[in-house]
């Protein structure tokens, strides 16, 4: 069996999902193309060498609908011979593509695969448009917030624990951002910010190079004042900004390829799909899978 290694990785910054988010109005194909191009350039690859682009998306409809993987790679200037497929495993869609890319390489079905994903919550709402839920499967549609409440209850995770976790996460993110830890992985995105005055459009190009929504000024006191976000008497409130933070941006694609033929050491091992799955221990007691 071949060994799969990650030879290049990049992501765009994570933007706010609200209308004033720096990336909110960018088409997901644009954002995707920007990282696809970057990730092959960084590895010194010719896009023609890429055999498949696996692109994760939790709500593959609206602007991220049809086959957004294929659209993005064409937009990135990859030759038409490169194929693309959109993969949905909700929140772990991006992760899933890396596992699948690794599987393709390990089984000898591909040499070079680009894996990653995109999610624009500013454009496609959670659970998408035009939903038609099955009247008999209600509990299977349980949302992430309610799932978290059930998990917290089952494992005795208190509101205080959650707030403390959230604060630690915010503080770490803030420190990492301040120290430039993310700079290497982030691909700055040039965004056109428009201002209209009658029929006149004024365009300003803005470089977005940092994640939004990192709240360095957050505190336990402030978090503890937030009302529970999901249940009237629930515990999950502090978690809320993080849920949005993670899902409202987009995850960048690591390029996966077989052990390089040259002398360069492999930059990282691709995660095994079984491990990735085993981490999803926060499964609810419901018959369904958590909706993320």
């Amino acid at each position, binding site marked *: 069996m071949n060994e799969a290694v990650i030879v290049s990785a990049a992501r765009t910054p994570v933007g706010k999902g609200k209308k004033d988010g720096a990336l909110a109005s960018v088409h997901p194909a644009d954002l995707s193309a920007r990282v696809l191009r970057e990730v092959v350039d960084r590895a010194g690859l010719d896009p023609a060498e890429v055999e498949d682009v696996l692109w994760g998306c939790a709500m593959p409809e609206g602007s991220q609908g049809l086959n957004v993987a294929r659209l993005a790679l064409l937009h990135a200037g990859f030759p038409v011979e490169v194929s693309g497929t959109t993969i949905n495993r909700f929140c772990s869609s991006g992760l899933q593509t890396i596992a699948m890319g690794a599987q393709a390489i390990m089984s000898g079905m591909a040499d070079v695969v680009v894996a990653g994903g995109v999610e624009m919550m500013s454009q496609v709402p959670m659970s998408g*448009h*035009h*939903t*038609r839920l099955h009247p008999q*499967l*209600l509990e299977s549609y349980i949302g992430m917030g*309610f799932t978290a409440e059930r998990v917290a209850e089952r494992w005795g995770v208190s509101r205080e624990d959650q707030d403390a976790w959230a604060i630690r996460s915010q503080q770490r993110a803030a420190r990492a951002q301040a120290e430039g830890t993310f700079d290497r992985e982030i691909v700055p995105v040039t965004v056109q910010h428009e201002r209209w005055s009658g029929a006149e459009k004024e365009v300003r190009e803005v470089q977005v190079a940092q994640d939004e929504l990192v709240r360095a000024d957050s505190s336990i006191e402030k978090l503890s004042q937030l009302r529970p976000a999901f*249940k009237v008497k629930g515990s999950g409130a502090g978690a809320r900004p993080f849920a949005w933070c993670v899902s409202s941006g987009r995850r960048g694609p690591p390029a996966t390829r077989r052990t390089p033929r040259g002398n360069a050491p492999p930059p990282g091992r691709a995660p095994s799909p079984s491990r990735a799955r085993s981490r999803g221990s926060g499964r609810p007691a419901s018959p369904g899978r958590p909706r993320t």
Partner: protein
Amino acid sequence: MRIKKVGVVGAGVMGSGIAALAASAGVPVVLLDVPGEEDRSLPAKRGLEKASKSKPAAFMDGARSALVEVGNTEDDLEKLSGCDWVVEVIVEQPAPKQALFARLEEILHDRAIVTTNTSGIPMSVLTEGRSDSFRRRFLGTHFFNPPRYLHLLEVIPTPDTDPDVLRTVEEFGDRVLGKGIVRAKDVPGFIANRLGVYGMVQALRLMEEHDLTIDEVDALTGPLIGRPKSATFRTADISGLDVLKDVTAGLAAGTGEDLSLPDWVVGLVDQGRVGEKAGSGFYRKEGKQIQTLDRRTGGYATQQKVELPELAALAGRPLEERVRGALELPGKHGAFSRALFARTSHYVLEHTPELAFDIVSVDRALERGYAWEAGPYRQMDALGAPRVREILAEQGLSEPELLAEAGGGFYREAAGGREFLSFDGGYEPVREAAGVLSLAPYRRGGRVLEENAEAALLDLGDGVALLELRSKMGTLGDGVIRMLHTAFERLEREGRAGLVIGHEDPRTFSAGANLMTVVGAVQQGNWKALEEMVGQFQDTVMGLRRAPFPVVIAPFGLTLGGGTEMSLHADLVQAHAELYMGLVETGVGLIPGGGGTKELLFRFTQDLQPYEDADPFEAVKRAFGVIAMARTSTSALEASGLGFLRPEDRITMNRDRLLADAKARVLDLAPGYTAPPPRTITALGREALGNLRYGAWSLHEAGQITEHEVAIANELAYVLAGGDGAPRTVTEQDILDLEREAFLKLLGTEKTQERIAHTLKTGKPLRN
């Protein structure tokens, strides 16, 4: 001239309230206040913000605040140059007002009208130094706080005011702002405050003389004598004791009269116990309990209901009997009532010619400004002049000239309608503003076409009939239903132009179906009768649509459940701007079973039909949200937002004009009228059911609704989905059948029956 843009200078509670009212009416407003330090327009912005957040709401629709442009009086006065009417509501001192008017004269266009909201400074002082042209376009406009909710607008012309200018302001205040206009003379306090405040000061003094408690005074000066429930002391708490102190001081200074407040009242103001806004005044709230001040100790004790058999016997009697009865109460209570009646009546009689142009204005000012059931002259008429003379004499008061002239009463019925006693001793006809339709004359003679205990059919002339609801709270019982069917039959047979549905109650259009009747049938287990009852209600509302003549409904105030369902089925709604409309059936464990569920579903679905790719579920979801959450509007504009009113439905700002406007709509629609054709839509079946049930499931998971509420929501979902099959074409009757079945099914549950019983007993919903 048409007033297209309004300027308001002064963004205090009153100024921003006037701005909010004008903007609610759809008129752009410029709102200015003094400059702030850093943000120069901060004071005006703050005023607007407070108005946006005030409770009860100053805006009829929050989005209308976008019509208000803010600024400050130093940098932005120019903004007023485009205004056709500028109302001054700044600090109550002559010099700043005069300075403002001097600057306005330079900036405003030469037809712009300027008015002042002063409550005491003589107009002649305010226009000192102004040109003749300015004086012709100047007058007083005295609003009451809060301007949206208090009906009275006193208009005070000066001797220089151009009659056209006066008419323009009155017309705008009446039609656009919806106020009840009363012309007053330029004297301190004008009519309403001058008389109202005098009465309050006398009540305070007399309670000491007669050794009464606050609870006793409020029991004697409230609904008993046709005043609001807030009576004397609660009213003072609401408006603020500090305001009362300032107003009495101002009036005393202006009139030279002794209006000093008792020491214990002044003491409260000094201690900051100025009423509701301070948390305590004459009353205070401890948790849910209301406590009353003991004026001797300054402490509070639990409110004491005044237990007098004579009082209990008067409750619910006609005003005439209540007023008479109050004066005949035994002991100190009767003595207090007689003394108060004598002093205030004497004052009114003596001062009317000085304050008002006629006695009608006095009655209207107190009815509209202080919400009296009947003004002082109507009350004196109810007692009869001889009895009034007697009481005045008993109290050692002289007989005022007006009373001496009132041999046949202050009002009398004449061939041409009602007449009033004029100052010269003759009688003149009582004139309603043109386009105001009041029902009293139509309840007489041959104009009553049909009548039963709950409703009447009146001939409004021009071929238009009115179905007048007469039941308590406008409930829709058997009598109303029968009257509607009689109306359908009779109007068609007689070839009349059309029907108006409405009435004149001040607060409630309809509280909906008569739950007592429903409970009675449930208790007897008479399900067949219940099914017939619901079916008949459905047929009746559908009859409004099917009738071969136009039906225009004129709802106002509280309009719930079946009242809303009737409105939804009329050809056109002519709504009063103050419309508190909702389908609140889920509160008593039911769903709207009289066509309300069907109508919202059809209406919202049809709205989406022209859009090829619109998700039809959005329509179902909207109806589900409005009904399941029992959404109730706080204005007619909000009712439009909720979907209860359609774009073609109309809003009347002035309640006094509602019935006349509705009648006019019937006459608009009547020529060539054809009934709206039957409709079909595609019901989504299972496709919608899962989405809606998930909505209910997740609200329950979130701990927001009870299990029974999930059951109610699921019944509602079933109706709105048109059942649990594949998508299918449905008629109105198909959905009505599902509605009826769901209604009866829920009615059969214990929890729903508990809800109904609880609501009937307490007037509040039960969440079980």
